[in-house]
């Protein structure tokens, strides 16, 4: 039987091949589009930032999104690519303390930043309280949206703590409540195809309650 290491090597080779085919496809497409002349690929750029506490240096095509840098450059596959257009939240990471869609920002725009992905929140034997609550409350089915949901949820509680209002906050000048309506509104940028929403709200509510 193949060892985990061999499987990992094969998986990487397969990924590299997929990326190469995609590149050929892109070139063919570009040649076909006669309105805009083909442009040479730009030279790679260096960028250094901290991911999950570790300093990282990358040489990247400036077109690389932060999402692709994390997944393909650093092999941190926890952060997911759903729509790649800011519409689903699967790619949510925490950048300098704030949740963002990593698919809609370029990696080269973030020198010196501190990035936290799902891999940095907790580990299988030392789960972050939010990860543990998602497990306890079945806050997922297929799990594809889950890393984004959890990163988002951790940041949502910090946003409420910091007094940042939301669309459903009745009094803009008072501290926002920690009720289900607030949690639902604030989590609306994370879509779950499996519809695990009610359990997600329960999981976040439990962590919020523990904190309060």
């Amino acid at each position, binding site marked *: 039987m193949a060892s985990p290491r061999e499987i990992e090597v094969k998986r990487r080779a397969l990924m590299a091949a997929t990326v190469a085919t995609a590149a050929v496809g892109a070139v063919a497409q*570009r040649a076909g589009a006669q309105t*805009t002349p083909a*442009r*040479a*690929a*730009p030279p790679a*750029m260096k960028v250094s930032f901290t991911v999950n506490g570790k300093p990282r240096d990358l040489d990247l*095509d*400036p*077109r690389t*999104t932060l999402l692709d840098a994390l997944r393909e450059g650093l092999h941190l596959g926890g952060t997911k690519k759903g729509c*790649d*257009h*800011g519409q689903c*939240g699967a790619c*949510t990471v925490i950048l300098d303390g*704030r*949740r*963002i*869609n990593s698919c*809609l*920002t*370029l990696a*080269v*725009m973030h020198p010196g930043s501190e990035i936290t992905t799902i891999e940095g929140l907790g580990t299988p034997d030392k789960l972050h309280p939010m990860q543990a609550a998602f497990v306890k409350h079945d806050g997922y089915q297929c799990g594809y949206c889950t890393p984004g949901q959890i990163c*988002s949820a951790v*940041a*949502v509680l910090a*946003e409420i703590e*910091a*007094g*940042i*209002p*939301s*669309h459903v*906050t009745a009094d*803009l*000048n008072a501290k926002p409540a920690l009720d289900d309506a607030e949690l*639902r*509104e*604030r989590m*609306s*940028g*994370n879509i779950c195809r499996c519809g695990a929403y009610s359990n997600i709200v329960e999981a976040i509510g439990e962590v919020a309650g523990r904190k309060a």
Partner: protein
Amino acid sequence: MKPFTYERAASPAEAATAAARQPGARFIAGGTNLLDLMKLQIETPDHLIDVNGLGLDRIEETQDGGLRIGALVRNTDLAADARVRRDHAVLSRALLAGASGQLRNRATTAGNLLQRTRCPYFYDTNMACNKRRPGSGCSALGGYSRQLAVVGGSEACIATHPSDMAVAMRVLDATVETVKPTVKPEGATRKIPIADFHRLPGDTPEIETVLEPGELITAVTLPKPAGGTHHYRKVRDRASYAFALVSVAAIVQPDGSGRVALGGVAPKPWRREDAEAEMSRGAKPVMAKLLAGARPTEENKFKLPLAERALAAVLAEAKG
């Protein structure tokens, strides 16, 4: 994405000059609209000028009691600013009604004003669209036009401006401050009233604002607080994370007078000061003037009564 080169600008004037030097250059702020469009090759800049490091991220009080909002202030920070919440609440409300928490954490004041339309044919590169490819025609006229403009459009384009924030800024009489890429004098500035900032499409729908090539937005200023009660009512297909079908931004004074602007109905935030004379008489007479000359399609004519009812709800809320 098409290949591009990337630089970080050192000062606002240098950013503007660098942009003017390279006709294919674009500024990038939050990137949440530009990168989306670049992935679809609707925008194909060959050079990006990152304006995030220019120090334009502060909100300061002006001498006349208003606020000067840096172009790079994130939508989250603007909505949460204590002075904005207290004195310009319609702006907080409009921002919080837009996009998602993640997007608002990146989206900037200038980028939000300059975001492009969500017309489905603008996004579909297989379809004719005068805004995306001037002269190719408009697929929305006679096509799927439910979300599109009922007033202010033209034979060439009936796209709406999708911003919520801009509607509130219109009702607050904001001013857009810019720096121009002129060589002499280096970095000339100008102030553009928000009413004049966005253009109607006419026969050049690809030109959406009065900005000149390379002109950089540095700030948006708000005059001293308008008083009254502030309202932003957004009607959409789902309760959150969707663009407006119709939105109403209003400031209502205790005597029933006030201001109103609409989102989701026109190529720019839609306000007519002459309609506001009718505010104390109710939604119907206001809308009669505000939406005078409307030319809805069969699919979007529902927006006319919807806008009137949304304003009626706002006026009822204002009475308490």
